[in-house]
């Protein structure tokens, strides 16, 4: 079917598609304008082919301004992500990008600790690429066969610590244990985290205890992705402590941990 001129504006070619684990896929999308604008922590909003009403928000895992590409890594969770996983190099995808408010970057020479839990790990990669050897990357997965992006993180020069819930790879247990060790070894200037809510809550609590600035990337069921429809509400408090709903797609996905109502 011939595309109308508006759908054409949102259509991008997929350069590569690689399966990382049973559930996780890596997609590189040719989008020079979006890549030029993209910042670590921002996301893309993809509309799968088929009978879907809503787009799927997926965080950006790689920004290559020279190649004019964005890389995303996502997990098959339902029918929409299943449809996206069927796409291959050379296919096209309907995308809005880059969207949202990303990480506020620290000084390049400052020590940072990056925490990724499961499919929350991908947005940490552009941060690791930015901070290089000054970054410590602590990632946690259910088991060895769910672990992703370890080689990518090592390539950035960052110190990497892998944890699994069942001890089948790396350290046995939660990311908070090595996090506290790294904090006490040398206090970082910033902690950034993305992953399941219980993990984020625990990381934010540690950051507060040790009085370290902490930025978290949150997830919520999303609509338009640009801040108009107001569905992806996040409970936050302002400087006066008054609660208000901000929106993950526009005010986030990255928030300062202290403004989130945990």
């Amino acid at each position, binding site marked *: 079917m011939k595309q*109308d*001129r*508006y*759908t054409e*504006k*949102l259509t991008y070619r997929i350069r590569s598609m690689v399966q990382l684990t049973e559930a996780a896929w890596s997609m590189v999308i040719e989008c020079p304008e979006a890549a030029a604008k993209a910042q670590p922590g921002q996301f893309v909003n993809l*509309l799968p082919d088929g*009978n*879907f*009403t*809503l*787009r799927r928000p997926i965080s950006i895992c790689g920004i290559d301004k020279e190649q004019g590409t964005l890389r995303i890594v996502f997990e098959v969770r339902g029918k*929409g992500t299943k449809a996206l996983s069927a796409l291959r190099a050379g296919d096209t995808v309907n995308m*809005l990008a880059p969207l949202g408010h990303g990480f506020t970057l620290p000084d390049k020479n400052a020590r940072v600790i990056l925490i990724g839990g499961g499919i929350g790990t991908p947005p940490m990669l552009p941060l690791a690429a930015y901070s290089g050897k000054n970054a410590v990357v602590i990632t946690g997965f259910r088991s060895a066969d769910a672990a992703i992006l370890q080689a990518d993180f090592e390539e950035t020069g960052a110190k990497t610590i892998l944890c699994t819930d069942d001890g089948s790879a790396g350290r046995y247990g939660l990311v908070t244990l090595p996090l506290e060790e790294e904090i006490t070894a040398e206090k970082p200037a910033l902690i950034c985290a993305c992953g399941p809510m219980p993990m984020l809550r625990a990381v934010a609590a540690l950051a507060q205890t040790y009085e370290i600035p902490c930025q978290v990337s949150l997830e*919520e*069921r*999303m*609509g*338009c992705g*640009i*801040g*108009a*429809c*107001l*569905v*992806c*509400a*996040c*409970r936050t408090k302002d400087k006066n402590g008054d*609660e*208000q*709903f901000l929106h993950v797609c*526009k005010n986030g996905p990255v928030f300062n941990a202290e403004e989130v109502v945990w």
Partner: protein
Amino acid sequence: MADLSVNICGIPFKNPIIPASGVFGYGREYEQYYPLSKLGGIATKGTTGTKRTGNLAPRVAETPSGMLNSVGLQNPGIDAFLANELPHLLSCDTVVLANIAGSTPEECAEVAEKLDQTDVHMIELNISCPNVKQGGAAFGTSCAAAAQVTAAVRRATKKPLCVKLSPNVTSITEIAKAVEAEGADAISLINTLLGMRIDLRTRRPILHNNMGGLSGPAIFPVAVRMVWQVANAVRLPVIGMGGVASGEDAAELMIAGASAVQVGTAIVQDPYAPLRIIDELNDWLDSNHIASAAELTGSVRAW
């Protein structure tokens, strides 16, 4: 190129396609994609007497050919709207339909009275929000309550008053006649249909509000039916909405009796949806040798 202009309550619209209240905020997010002057009009986010924070998330769930939402009228309140949003909207060269809501008829009237002092083109009174505990659909599901709130707002403003009806009623024509009798100048419909989804794994409703409003192509046939019934029951112009996703959908709703068409869920999916629908409507009119969109209104040849 067909003539897309329509006229409702003496207000000229350059085309009949209007982003529906709720999906479009106050327009600012969409200006990065296109000038708002391309739109027939804009129905603004429902605004209440004072600031509303809205419901807890999750506020959205995908459904077959549609979605449920339970935003709960999150908005900054009428004074912030007047100070921060309306002046800009009025400079955008498109018709502004200020959507208003409230917990009581008095609150709705107070908001309308403040808008009466502005250059807003039309007031759209929402008596059909399914996601708030007071007011909302409670106004829109009984003839007496619908009449009472319409009368209160009518006394507060001389602006053209469009009342937005809930489909969650047994007889939509009775409600339409009730608001017509109290001085409404136009009727818009349908708001969302009350629905619910449950996560099988957790047995929790997906929406934190448990229930929410169903929208999208799934409800389009209900919209066509109700627009047709209301257009035949009252003398007022009707603005149709409910699952419109293409120019042909817009044409169908106009043939059923609508003078203009609002687009909601399609915009949540694609910011360019209203412009695409305008193009498609124009193409459909041209290919069917119809000179003017306005000719479509109420032209259904019912059996």
